[in-house]
């Protein structure tokens, strides 16, 4: 156990020393890795914020229930009672007279309304269910349209569907982007470690001759790759946080124009840890590929 720990500590120390030995190369490599991780991380943040913004808007979804012209006020009152029993949320009755007044108040409509021989508008209910999930809204609209004295039920959920499809597409795009940049990160680490191995080929040869296991030779490079990935992940976190800090003010201003209290948020703790973990894993993978290839090449046939 002591020997195992000593070897791991020594490998970790060696990895730090290698990072510190050539600061310019290290900084450049870390920047490349950091930027490669920033783009998919930023994509995740954007999608996450859009999802939250859409959830905020979706929560005010309305269903307009228009009654038949022949529906009496008594029937309307009965329907309101039934609605309150069956739907959890806000229910507002809009009598046809109020609807006509609202229409008259609309710019350019006053003359048109005045020229009408009678009020053509029906009584209506504006229903705002608590559960505003698109599927629930659709099911409710379908149920209400089957009620007697209901002439038409209007639900504008098509945009929600479109937005949902857009988010799915965005997630797929971010996934593809992440895969491409992950490959780039592995390639950068592979190349960095390949150069180190070539510079230390004599040491590796001697170590193998005097009894070093492949694990002993691989270990410092694994630590190097993982450390490089973690540091790259930290850079990506900083860049995303900086971008969020710069954009959050203007986004809040824009949101207030739409009367919402939406606030831009950055990477959460879970996503931050995931970013560091993915960075470490990809760095380790690059090291594994690089050292593995070299050790296979020098193996006596």
């Amino acid at each position, binding site marked *: 156990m002591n*020997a195992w720990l000593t*070897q791991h500590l*020594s490998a970790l120390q060696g990895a730090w020393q290698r990072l510190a030995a050539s600061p310019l190369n290290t900084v450049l490599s870390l920047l490349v890795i950091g930027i490669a991780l920033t783009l998919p991380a930023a994509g995740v943040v954007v999608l996450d914020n859009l999802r939250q913004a859409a959830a905020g808007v979706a929560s005010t979804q309305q269903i307009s229930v228009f009654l038949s012209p022949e529906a009496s006020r008594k029937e309307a009152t009965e329907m309101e009672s039934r609605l309150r029993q069956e739907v959890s949320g806000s229910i507002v009755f809009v009598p046809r007279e109020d609807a006509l007044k609202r229409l008259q108040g609309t710019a350019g409509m006053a003359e048109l309304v005045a020229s009408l021989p009678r009020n053509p508008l029906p009584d209506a209910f504006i229903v705002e269910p608590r559960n505003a999930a698109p599927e629930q809204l659709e099911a409710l609209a379908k149920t209400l349209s089957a009620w007697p004295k209901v002439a038409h039920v209007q639900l504008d959920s098509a945009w929600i569907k479109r937005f949902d499809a857009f988010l799915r597409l965005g997630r797929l795009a971010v996934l593809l982007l992440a895969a491409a940049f992950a490959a780039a990160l592995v390639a950068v680490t592979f190349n960095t470690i390949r150069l180190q191995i070539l510079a230390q080929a004599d*040491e590796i*040869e001697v*170590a193998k*001759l*005097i009894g070093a296991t492949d694990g002993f030779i691989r270990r410092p490079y694994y630590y190097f790759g993982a450390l490089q990935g973690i540091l790259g992940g930290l850079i990506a976190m900083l860049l995303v946080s900086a971008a969020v800090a710069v954009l959050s003010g203007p986004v809040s201003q824009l949101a207030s124009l739409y009367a919402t209290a939406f606030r831009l948020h950055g990477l959460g703790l879970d996503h931050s840890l995931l970013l560091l973990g993915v960075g470490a894993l990809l760095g380790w993978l690059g090291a594994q590929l690089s050292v593995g290839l070299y050790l296979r090449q020098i193996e006596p046939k």
Partner: protein
Amino acid sequence: MISFSAVHKRYPTGYEALRGVSFDIEAGELVFITGHSGAGKTTLCKLAAAIERPTSGSVVVNGQNLAALRKSAIPYVRRNFGLVFQDQKLLFDRTVLDNVLLPLAIVGLSPKEAGKRARAALDKVGLLEREKANPIALSGGEQQRLAIARAVVNRPAILLADEPTANLDTDSAGEVMELFKAFHQVGVTVILATHDTQWVRHLNPRVLWVEHGQVRAPGERPEGQA
């Protein structure tokens, strides 16, 4: 301790370095493997230390048949040996002390204990005062003594050296041979592959004469050879 039985070694180029070699080396022996250049001495050393694998036949070290060993077990076999190479294989980007510390790092010794052992090994070969020097600053004899310190620092049971005096002047070669003799006297099995037979009379070892890839019995040695 070491047993070669009907060992053949053919390299991928087609060159047949050993042809049916059989011999045994017991613990505590001092053995010279001699013969002309290209006779197969280096191949014998590489097979014994599992640096190469035999094409056929068996090489057994401490009861382990090297041909049947898994690849992952080979490093542990090599740790039975203290290896000294003709070209020393020193690390010239490290200090003298760091070179001797390498085998101790491989076995995972703590830095404190490793430092003690490495300095003791350097002291034994007379290089303690040069511990911070770069090996490139050492003479040929000193470099070979450093290689010996690195070979013995892990206290191996077998010290195996391939042409350890090939590039040394007589005085330096004498110092190196005295070191091998000293290690043999404390019970280490010492195997030296050398074409230089002048040390045979001086050290009185057991001699294995290699010629054309075969080990000759003592009576079969050519005239004038050890």
